[in-house]
């Protein structure tokens, strides 16, 4: 963002953008695997519960 002249982006908004990037980073880091689990859960027929999804043991 630094290449933009300061009258387009003030220092506060630059800070806000950096914060936003950091939040996106964290969300992607910890939300990615849960997101896949949700996709799979939503498409599976028997809707396994969270414990079933996470445990390596066979579940019926």
């Amino acid at each position, binding site marked *: 963002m*630094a*290449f933009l002249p300061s009258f387009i982006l003030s220092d506060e908004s630059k800070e806000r953008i950096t914060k936003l990037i950091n939040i996106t*980073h964290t969300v*992607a*880091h*910890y939300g*990615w*695997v849960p*997101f*896949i*689990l949700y*996709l*799979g859960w939503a*498409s*599976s*027929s*028997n809707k*396994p519960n969270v414990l*079933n*999804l*996470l445990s*390596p*043991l*066979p*579940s*019926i």
Partner: protein
Amino acid sequence: MATPVTLTDFSKIPSMPGVTPMTPDQSKGGFWSSNPLSSFFFETYKTVASHRQSLALVNPGTVENLNKEVSRDVFLSQYFFTGLRADLNKAFSLNPAFQTSHTFSIGSNALPNYAFSALFADDNLFVQGNLDNEFSLSGRVNYGWNKNNISKVNLQLAKGQPAMCQLEQDYQGSDYSINLKSLNPSVSPEGLFNGVAVGSLLQSITPQLSLGLEVLYSRGQGSGAADAGVSYLTRYVSKKQDWIFSGQMQANGALIASFWRKVTPSVEAGIETTLQAGMVPITDPVVGTPIGIQPVVEGSTTIGAKYEYRQSVYRGSIDSTGKVACFLERKILPTLSVLFCGEIDHFKQESKLGCGLQFETAGNEELLMMQQGLDVNGNPLQLPPQV
């Protein structure tokens, strides 16, 4: 020659020849096809297109898969691990595919002690994520817009390390493939591109032979100068598709030649030679100061074979640096496979060993029965399941 077009009649508005459907006027000789300049391009395009059709070319495959048959199918370096490992895969559904996996490992430098991964795939979406015990994430999304276009995103996030993000676009035409990718793209304060950008094109020349080019541009975060290079690629598939030769001349001075043959339906063999040219400074033996540079070439050749049976896969390879390696994978039960891999480096007197177990479990009853070779009602299946 060209009659003035009244804009109220939309069917007479000329469109781009060969790109958009032609108006009735154009097809029977309107402005664009009667104009000598545009008709020349139009006719040339039509001649080239029809000539291309008559060659009966096929898509050459992607640049990424140029020597896939040798380096990923036959050779075992992709599968090799050391120490002990156990994989517990749990399938929840087959279509769309949804599977989770827990991997435990000890005694390995590369594998984390524990990793959880999840995979979801349907007809045009593929999503995969892997999170290990140190909370480093690697994720991947592939999305197919249609049968020609695939977008891919690779993401790697680890604590205390810069994030890695790779964007990739694959286009597969009737007789060519284009791939564009970019690693960590960003714009520097001066408005210049930062990161790595790679563009490649692979074009079929005859139904057997394809040639390609890969252009790489990279620029680091610092003030260092940008780097660019061109690689040349070639691939030849025999008429019966039972052998493939591929060659690459890379921008960094590496020359890779590989050859693959399907010997019988269950046996494949491959050989790959890599020559890496580089420059090393020569130092004065007395003073120790550099007095010049000399070219050096490092080379290695690996030959390997893969035997694939219904219950087991064996891979073995020998290379010119004195390494002999093997990888065995055997399904001892429908739900349990054992892995063994070993490597001996005869010149360095070193060896590596890896043993592993792979369990397949199911998240629902139907899949559990299928893994045992039974259908939902407990009757044996006609064909053994390939889960």
